[in-house]
């Protein structure tokens, strides 16, 4: 008699079905050249490197390196994402708004994004840049901090013609 337990599922069939269904659209998918997953006391740490792309519910972001930490402390859902740190040529696009920075810190549970290292946020109504920017998702506010060497926040408004176009569109 053999001690075979439940049959071993074949891993040959391709598991990487493109995430196109509605359920998959709710999830967060990250691809990269390389990945390290480290299981720690507090949860899992994921280190992505090389052509990192993250697809969220209605946004996409790219960077050189990304670290994701999930939480198993019990405060949030088990395995929930607690923080995402993206570094190196960070570009985030959501709708018509594009943010670029050298570093981005995303806190999903508090709906907050911190942009550093030459951050800029641009959309159809103009562009904002500064030393450090905090995007408060909950109350849809962006705060821009001056730099230690006096770099002031900077707002670029679109040309008058396009403002007229925008007001005609509304």
């Amino acid at each position, binding site marked *: 008699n053999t*001690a075979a337990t439940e049959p*071993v599922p074949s891993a040959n069939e391709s598991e990487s079905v493109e995430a196109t269904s509605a359920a998959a659209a709710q999830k967060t998918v990250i691809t990269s050249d390389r990945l390290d997953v480290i299981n720690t006391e507090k949860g899992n740490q994921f280190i992505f490197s090389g052509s990192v792309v993250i697809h*969220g519910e209605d946004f996409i972001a790219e960077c050189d390196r990304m670290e994701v930490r999930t939480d*198993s402390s019990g405060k949030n859902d088990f395995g929930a*994402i607690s923080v995402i740190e993206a570094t190196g040529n960070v570009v985030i696009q959501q*709708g018509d708004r594009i943010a670029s920075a050298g570093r981005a810190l995303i806190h999903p549970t508090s709906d907050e994004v911190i942009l550093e290292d030459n951050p800029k946020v641009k959309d159809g109504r103009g562009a904002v840049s500064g030393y450090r920017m905090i995007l408060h998702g909950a109350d849809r506010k962006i705060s821009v901090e001056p730099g230690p060497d006096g770099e002031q926040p900077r707002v670029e408004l679109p040309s008058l013609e396009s403002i007229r176009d925008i007001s005609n569109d509304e």
Partner: protein
Amino acid sequence: MRFHSRFLAASILTAITILSCGSLQAEVKPDAEVKSFTFRKFNDQGLRIWDLSGQEAVFVNDNVLRIIEMQLDITSTKDQEETRLRSPNAQIYVEDNMATGDGFLYVQGNGFNAEGKDWEWRGRERRIEINDGAKVTFDDAIRRILK
């Protein structure tokens, strides 16, 4: 150290053989093949560390097993979290508590699934490395980023 590793590998294969053939007088032969097996490893406190199962295992040498259709269920120290690794082809380095494979690896963990090729699992460091075409799907949806 050499006697220790030989004894460890031999006892592992004896355990596998017993588990899979049910005979008590198992004889350990290099290149022995074992089919449809499950092997459990415990730590010094008697807690389960992992369950290794597969369609076929070939005993390559003292320290290395080659496994077809590998499934490795790893228990974290918190006992709630379990991570499952599956791969069509894997090499298990018994003494080093390590596994590698140049084919596909599928990982099911708490709140995520991961996959990719050319991989390595290091049990002591509780670390999985994927060196080609990594993809992770988190159950968690991230909504508001810029708006």
